[in-house]
């Protein structure tokens, strides 16, 4: 969006902001001498791993938190001293937006209008475009708590725009929102910028979103690692990105291997090979994999981001785990020998809630050692399916088999011992330390004595949690919390892993690590069923199923799904394009579920 137009006035400027927090590990510099400007009528992205200081910065700018030193100017106000005056003009949408779930859509809008002193006679005129943009018009009298996740986020945006603020601060507005709703949300925001010259400062963990911004600011460990137009940052990576394939190794084996090679800044599995970002002009491949096919590929924003991060901070992801660390198959004889049987069989599975059918005659199966992705918009029935599989919910009808055993007829304890379950909330006891959490969860699965101690030591080493052993789980950075949650759910050596949006809100660095671990587990014969909103992650899956309204819309390998969306206009669709296309075919846009 128009970087060649005449320079615009900065409506927001940040100069040398420093903010520290005290923590049990000492003083943390959440923001360390941060400076940048935001021009009027542009979208600026604030990008960085978890704990980089994005939220802290947005809170300081909104006048909710004070800075230790440095100053900021927003719309001519100083948030440190003129917060009340600033907040009348500013729109701010925090990560957990405070919608009142017991109020209707209309009442939520009225409330925010009241809070910002919008005169009643102007409201009709201000609401109309917001309601039509968000397509919430027909739901004015519906309770906010009864909206889907995507609609709630849209209502949140509408509420923050109700007083027509010239500047809007958004903190990860699209976390946990499905690709379709995400696209719609961005259309709303882009229109706001285009038509009203609203300025946006947005933090996000989605790299594909970042590439659509006018400018991005990359934050890492409280410092600005890079700043500029996304195109410029991307062009820095040109000539450093390659697609590497080694026919005798699967990408799942190749990726962790390459990630360990010095000079390779980033490696991620893609399309039958591995996409790598390298330091020099060619991948420094070791002699072991000589017959490798190497092709240069055009860089994406994510490549540029990983390049910056690796340069600025050294290699941030932990070294990939090696099989010797966690000899899965030696300990679970049942795993290796049952190679041909299906790990999960679901037949005609149905679940009703009153008159609403959440899951409708669903049928699919997951093979041993397979990574199976379950994709779908919010409310498609994925979580309900998961809850039935894990025994938290009884099906209305249908059949569920886990390792050949009927879930409904078998002894519950036996089935549950075979399952590992990790939910999007990273459910851990936040008051307990990392070690205490592991002790508890392994005990819950019946481990005790020396076997338990050995297993915990092994798991702590494998997930590199030793340094945080005595830390309360609730105080861990998000990426570590996720790592611990996964550690806790695999500590009892399950043969099947159920992961419900396991990477929600987690940054790209932690996401890569996470998937490397999952790939490794699948190589050891663990079957994985996973839901995700990140379509790039679905590429890690052997097969994916797309659900809508409780039914199966499509099933196949990522390549097959992509092929189904191929048209003359988009000869090479991404999985996300394919996903949105399939959903739109099933349900014309604009018709709410």
């Amino acid at each position, binding site marked *: 969006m128009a970087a060649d137009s005449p320079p615009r006035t900065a409506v927001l400027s940040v100069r040398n902001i420093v903010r520290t927090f005290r923590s049990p590990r000492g003083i943390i510099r959440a923001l360390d001498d941060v400076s940048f400007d935001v021009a009027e009528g542009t979208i600026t992205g604030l990008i960085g791993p978890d704990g980089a200081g994005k939220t802290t910065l947005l809170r300081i700018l909104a006048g909710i938190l004070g800075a230790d030193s440095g100053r900021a100017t927003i719309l001519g106000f100083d948030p440190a001293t003129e917060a009340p005056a600033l907040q009348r003009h500013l729109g701010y949408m925090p990560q957990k937006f405070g919608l009142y779930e017991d109020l209707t859509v209309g009442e939520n809008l009225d409330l925010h209008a009241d809070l910002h002193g919008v005169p009643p006679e102007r409201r009709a005129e201000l609401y109309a475009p917001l309601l039509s943009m968000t397509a919430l018009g027909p739901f004015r009298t519906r309770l906010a708590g009864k909206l889907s996740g995507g609609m709630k986020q849209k209502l949140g945006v509408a509420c923050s725009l109700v007083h027509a603020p010239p500047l809007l601060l958004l903190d990860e507005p699209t976390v946990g929102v499905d690709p379709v709703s995400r696209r719609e949300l961005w259309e709303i925001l882009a229109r706001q910028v285009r038509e009203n010259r609203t300025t946006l400062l947005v933090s996000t963990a989605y790299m594909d979103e970042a590439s659509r911004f006018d400018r991005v600011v990359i934050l890492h460990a409280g410092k600005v690692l890079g700043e500029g137009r996304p195109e410029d940052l991307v062009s820095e990576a040109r000539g450093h990105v390659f697609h590497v394939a080694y026919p005798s190794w699967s990408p799942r084996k190749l990726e962790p291997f390459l990630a360990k090679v010095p000079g390779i800044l980033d490696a991620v599995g893609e399309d039958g090979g591995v996409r790598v970002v390298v330091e020099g002009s060619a991948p420094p491949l070791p002699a072991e994999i000589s017959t490798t096919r190497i092709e240069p590929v055009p860089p994406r924003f994510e490549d540029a981001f990983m390049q910056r991060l690796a340069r600025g901070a050294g290699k941030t992801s932990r070294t990939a785990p090696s099989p010797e660390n966690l000899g899965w198959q030696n300990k679970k004889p049942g795993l290796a020998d049952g190679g041909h049987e299906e790990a999960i069989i679901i037949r005609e599975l149905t679940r009703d809630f009153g008159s609403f059918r959440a899951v409708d005659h669903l049928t699919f199966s997951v093979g041993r050692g397979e990574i199976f992705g379950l994709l779908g918009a919010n409310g498609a029935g994925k979580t309900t399916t998961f809850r039935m599989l894990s025994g938290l919910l009884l099906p209305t009808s249908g059949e569920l088999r886990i390792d050949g055993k009927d879930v409904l007829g078998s002894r*519950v304890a036996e089935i*549950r011992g075979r399952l590992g379950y990790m939910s999007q909330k*990273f*459910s*851990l006891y936040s*008051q307990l330390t990392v070690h*205490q959490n592991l002790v508890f969860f392994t005990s819950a699965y*019946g481990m005790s004595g020396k076997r338990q101690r050995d297993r915990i030591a092994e798991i702590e080493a494998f997930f590199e949690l030793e340094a945080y052993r005595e830390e309360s789980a609730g105080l861990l950075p998000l990426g570590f919390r996720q790592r611990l949650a996964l550690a806790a759910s695999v500590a009892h050596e399950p043969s099947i892993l159920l992961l419900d949006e396991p990477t929600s809100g987690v940054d790209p660095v932690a996401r890569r690590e996470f998937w490397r671990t999952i790939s490794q587990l699948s190589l050891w014969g663990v079957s994985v069923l996973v839901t995700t909103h990140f379509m790039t992650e679905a590429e890690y899956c052997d097969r994916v199923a797309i659900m809508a309204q409780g039914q199966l819309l499509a099933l196949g390998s990522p390549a097959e799904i992509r092929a189904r969306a191929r048209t003359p206009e988009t000869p090479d669709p991404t999985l996300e394009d394919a996903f949105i296309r399939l959903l739109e075919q099933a349900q014309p846009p604009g018709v709410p579920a």
Partner: protein
Amino acid sequence: MKALAIRILRLAQKEFLALLRDKKSRMVLIVPPLVQLIVFSYAATFDLNHISYAVWNEDPGLYSRQVLARFSGSPNFRLLKSVDSEKEVRALIDNRKVLLVLHIRSTFSRDLLAGRPGTVEALVDGRQSNTAMILMGYVQTIVQGFSDDFVAANGLTPPIAPLSLRAWYNPNLKSRWFIVPGIVGLLTLVVSLLVTALSVAREREDGTFDQLLVTPLRPFDIIMGKIIPGFVIGFAESTAIVLVGVFLFHVPLRGSLPALYLGIFLFTLSGLGVGLMISSLVSTQQQGLLGAFLFLVPSIILSGFATPIANMPQIIQDMTLINPLRYFLVILREVFLQGAGIRILIPEYAALAAIGIGSLLLAGHFFRKRIG
């Protein structure tokens, strides 16, 4: 069996850590109950001290001064003012300057000398009816003492049926002896209810409850794991309160310790049961807290802690039959003051055990229901 014991032990350990590792919840469990004990025991007393009163004496004679001297000499009374008109009396009582005005008419000494009954009028502030009743008792005792001495000194005929009062188990009718054992019950109930009522709700909010339910642990294990820490904390706190009551407030503990602790055990069981029942029905900690208070307030008011159950309408008296605090207060007061042993309290133990087991079974039922 051993595996089961280990599982439950680990669950209990986890509950303990969750409660005690967090500085705030540690404080909430330990400090307020002890502060409440001290404050309640000093403040919540029916004994009146420093009663401010005024005198309106129209009698110039000797006897009125003798009567009034008995008041001014009592440690419970504090003379604020002498007045000489009804208007002043009204002003003093209306403005809550005094609780009592003693009015002696001009004929008082003359009537006594002439062998006629004299009248001492006591005007009390009836707006605080409870205080007024107690105050009238005090005034009566003092005036009675004067008239008994007068009768004896002047060789007159004593009243025909003099009343001789003696209070067993609490000879001086110290209200602290009545209140402190009650507080043991009150605080034990608050603690055992809060420990459990919030625990499942907290797990639901954090999402750990689902994580717990997908493990092979059964509802029975989970309930046991939640009850054990409640027991330990309930026992520790009630022991602390008993110790403070006996050594700081000198309330006699005349009965047997086994009788007391059997009562504490069964009462804690029913408190935990009710707490878990609330917990299994609510989905947030806020609802859990509200539920706990919804149960706490009526169970304290309808327990006989302050007002006797016998005074309540029959239908309410019937309702108090499911109130565990009602039985525990009987146990406490009888063990502390009367020196009761286990045998005499069997009906109360049985009632508590029934409430405890019943509520636990219901809690287990609700647990399972929420899963399906």
